[in-house]
């Protein structure tokens, strides 16, 4: 399971960065989404995957008796998902607006701000 997730994380990172390097604005958004998901999976993986052991202390005990699933990474991922959801929504609107105003989805055409004015 870990190995599979590690491979998927790597693939998502690679695909995300590759897409961000492409010239199309739409692919840029796809890259952002893939990269965001890759990071979330990475945090999930690094929090040590423990199956079927909820982090609940039994009534008679004071501390955890055995290994348990760490809830913190899941809380982190949840936060990160919400944030990247907001950012992606913003990105889509921004790109749509940019496409409408500039009439191109080629990132190489977005160079007027670098020119001297």
């Amino acid at each position, binding site marked *: 399971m870990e190995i599979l997730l590690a491979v998927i994380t790597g693939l998502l990172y690679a695909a995300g960065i590759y897409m961000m390097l492409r010239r199309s604005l739409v692919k*840029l958004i796809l890259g952002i989404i893939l990269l965001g998901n890759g990071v979330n999976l990475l945090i999930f993986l690094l929090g040590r995957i423990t199956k079927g052991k909820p982090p609940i202390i039994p009534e008679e005990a004071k501390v955890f008796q055995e290994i348990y699933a760490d809830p913190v990474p899941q809380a982190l991922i949840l936060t990160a998902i919400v944030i990247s959801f907001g950012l992606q929504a913003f990105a889509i609107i921004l790109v749509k607006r940019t496409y409408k105003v500039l009439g191109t989805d080629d990132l190489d055409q977005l160079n007027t701000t670098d020119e001297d004015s």
Partner: protein
Amino acid sequence: MSNLAILSPLLIHLLFSILLMFAWRSLKWQKSLTIIGNSIALAASIWVFILVYEHGTQTVQSGNWQAPFGITFVGDMLAVTLVLLTCISGFAVAIFSVVSVIKARLKFGYFSVFHFLLMGLIGAFLTGDIFNLYVWFEIIIISSFVLISLGGEKNQLEGAVKYFTLNFLASMIFLTALGVLYGLTGTLNMADLSQKIVLLENQALVEICAVLFLVGFGIKSAVFPLYFWLPASYHTPPSAVSAIFAGLLTKVGVYALIRVFTLIFVGDLFLETLLLSIAILSIFSGGIGALIQNNIRKVFSYLIICHIGFMIGGLGLFTTVAIAGTIFYLIHDIIVKTNLFLISGLIYRLRSTSSLQKLGGLYDQYPKISLLLAIPLFSLVGIPPLSGFWPKISLILAGFEQQNYWFVGAVIFGSLITLVVIAKVWSEAFWKEPKPVKKWKKFVDFSQLKQIQKAQLIFPIAFLSVVSLYIGFGAEHIQQLSERIANELMDNQQYIDAVFKTRTDAR
């Protein structure tokens, strides 16, 4: 809990950004509310500063969850000083935006987002939890995305796409580093991390993590190979927005670097060399970039990169003297850079162009304003009694102590090139004969403004100039403050004790 006091500037900004949403339809209300809000926040931040100055580091454990488990807010000297500077800049920029930002932008919640941005900055300075730092960074960048694209002009959108992509990438790299760090140590509290990280066996992975942090924060603070988004986007939004970005947004990256590399990843020779080399390269590339630009706001954008190098270099030298220089430079730079972009806004208002070729004759037409503008421009260069001069002494001294003559040379070169650039700006914009400019139809010239509106444009610049003058002439106080902060940073046990103090008290 009296400790909650340190959160007051943050909560005031939150409250006012919500209140401003209720006043969505009335610009008049929004304008007065934002000025009131920023004044109260400024007063609160001064109070917090004095509190921490007198009683030492204050901490708040949110929800009363004790230190390594809950989110901790730590108001140490560095954090509250930066909160104070944030509120000073925010106050000045808010007044400036009342007149300078056009109605079409103000109508769509400009002020509300502006308060959210300031709240995010204050939160980032105060938090003692590294994941919480990420969340504050996201609040900052979301607000800054809105501010940079609000208005939807063509080159604004272009700048926004670049700004968005690279800042998003930086956040993702930061988050990756954070995930790896959590996997290694199982904690997110910075004080706890600082204790646990030295015990780890796998120091190679820690180093990779540190480099990821360096890249993530490096993009945000625009250091040498990672700065290209900055000159491509900072001149596109209204100058009030660029002012707050220039003054604070890159500095929050520098703050994060200082915090992480003095608290968590300490004393790594490779990293220090890396920091020093990117600092030197930033100074060179920023300085040379500034020389060849024609747009006045682009010139200032490149100067930001050049001066980020000074601060990163001080951090790279990693002695108390060098860190004190970095802190002093940070204090000076936030005020002066904010002011510079306000000045570029005022110049645009006077002449309806930002092009150095077309500008000119400002000194003839507005001698008093020109003299006022000379203060921040000369402070930036660091002509002796003014504020830019003092931190460079500490930096150069530290460079000699460490026998790092490359850095000493770079600081001197950076100062020299700043002088050349400012001399160029001064002679082009203030002394030369102006060239005719095609004016935008709806453009309202400075002379057509009402007296009160003129005052609202001039007052923030004058206010920040007075602060700059104080930093220059009261350099002894600022130097003492910087040394105190540097001592606190070098001896990170103080920080750790402050965070865990409440836990031992409770038992």
